[in-house]
């Protein structure tokens, strides 16, 4: 399989986990020492480092999901990801691959409204060495600086 297809497949499988409420499987798409961050274009452009969700390891992604399941209170909701095709940007010296992929996430709240919740792009660094493509890094850059209340599920 070519890189493009490998990455597109991994992205499709990953989004499906979030949208179909298989959240526990979501961290499996990341490497052990991964970085995951949700930020906005404004912060990204200005080089401001903070994120709305900011995991410095796969274990932190696991904690995110445990907290969502066991601790946090948020209104019942559902995402539907529409993911564009990845653009392969570069291959690093160590063989890892950088890609950029546009996304759109629609959110369906308990009362039934369907809202356009977020658009943006994934800035990814892929480890393609193993059986499955794994994310060593995913920076989720949301286009808008305004986020509707309760970013509960990962994007």
């Amino acid at each position, binding site marked *: 399989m070519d890189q493009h297809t490998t990455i597109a497949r991994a992205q499709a499988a990953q989004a499906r986990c979030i949208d179909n409420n298989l959240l526990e499987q979501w961290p499996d798409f990341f490497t052990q020492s991964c970085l995951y961050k949700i930020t906005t274009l404004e912060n990204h452009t200005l080089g*401001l480092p*903070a994120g*709305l969700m*900011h995991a410095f390891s796969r*274990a932190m992604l696991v904690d995110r999901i445990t907290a969502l399941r066991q601790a946090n209170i948020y*209104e019942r909701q559902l995402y539907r990801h529409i993911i564009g095709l990845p653009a392969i940007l570069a291959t690093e010296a160590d063989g890892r691959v950088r890609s950029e992929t546009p996304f759109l996430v629609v959110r369906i709240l308990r009362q039934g409204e369907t809202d356009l919740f977020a658009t943006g792009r994934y800035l990814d660094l892929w480890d393609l060495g193993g059986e499955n493509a794994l994310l060593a890094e995913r920076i989720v850059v949301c286009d808008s600086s305004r*986020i509707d209340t309760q970013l509960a599920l990962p994007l």
Partner: protein
Amino acid sequence: MNDQPADHGTDALPDWAPGLSRIPYWLFQRQDVADAERTRIFHGPSWNYLGLAAEVPNPGDYRCTWVGDTPVVMVRDDHGEVRAWENRCAHRGALIAVENQGNAKSFACVYHAWTYDQAGTLTSVAFQKGIKGQGGMPRDFDICQHGPRKLKIAVLCGLVFASFDHAAVPLEEYLGEAIVARVQRVFLGRTPKILGRFTQVLPNNWKLYAENTRDSYHASILHLFFTTFKINRLGMKGGIIVNHHGGCHVSWSSNTQPKASADDYSGLRADSGYQLADPTLLRGFDEFRDDVTLQILSVFPGFILQQIQNALAVRQMVPRGPDKADLHWTYFGFEEDTPEQTEVRLKMANLMGTGGFISMEDGCVGGFVQRGIAGAADQQALLMMGGHDADSQDSRVTESSIRGFWKAYRAAMGI
């Protein structure tokens, strides 16, 4: 020189019996309430947070911000002073500054190029004398009589506050000694450094968020993150400080254990069902000269300063009509921080914001109230935990600081 807006009166509003422990729901639903708040509170003798002085470090740096829902520009002038003026052209009302931030010697309105200096003073009118004697402004037009409203400025620990009312009492007097001291304990003379800015859109009236911020009663009930992960909160002591007019408060708690080691901070108990898979999330550093691990501080009407362990942020509330508000978060650390300390703050930032482990819930309860009261304009909320007054208390099982908000609110609104 500045045309004052008409005072939106409160005569048409329903009755509200005296006292602080019953809050009628119509306060959260009516446009005429929002209009009266604009004139009497936000344009009145209150102090409103504009931004951090560190956001405009150099001469000419500016940022667009708000006081209530009124757009305001904060500028550092060429003499190093921070200035603020309404972002509204004196000609026909267009925004004068149209970027979020930038650097400018002067500001020209894009519409017809009326130009302002860094202090917001109108300095020129394009084609004032017309062309070849034709057109132009009337001869008696006096440029000095026109301009956007200018705000009075006060800076405390690098936090820039402003008031539309130039007769407002000095900021430190408005806050009171105890609140000022609690602001200072966070900054400790350091220079703030911005780590990120996020806007959270709240589906509720701004006052419901103002109440939530001052509500120390809900913390251990609504926010289950710490409890679920058995993060040690035993021996927590804490209290509430409410200032003289009621509108400003501090809620704090501290870990009274002699000396918390890094491992205590991860707080895991061997027998707990759930543990953090990555306990470095909460592995903090000793930053403050006390054992206060949580401090929420509010300034009437719309400002919040937050310290949750090493996670620091300011929040600015901007009303967007009766049933919506924007909450602008600015996450910060200090220029003096080491890279390791910055990383701690970035990790702990997971606790706050619209997706925060312990502030996520605050983003939905306001909406639950707003929807819950839809048919209950004539009913009222009860605020009786810890009595009927707005006094400082040693217990956090109290609604005293929320009553403080309403005390300041009633005084400002004259209702």
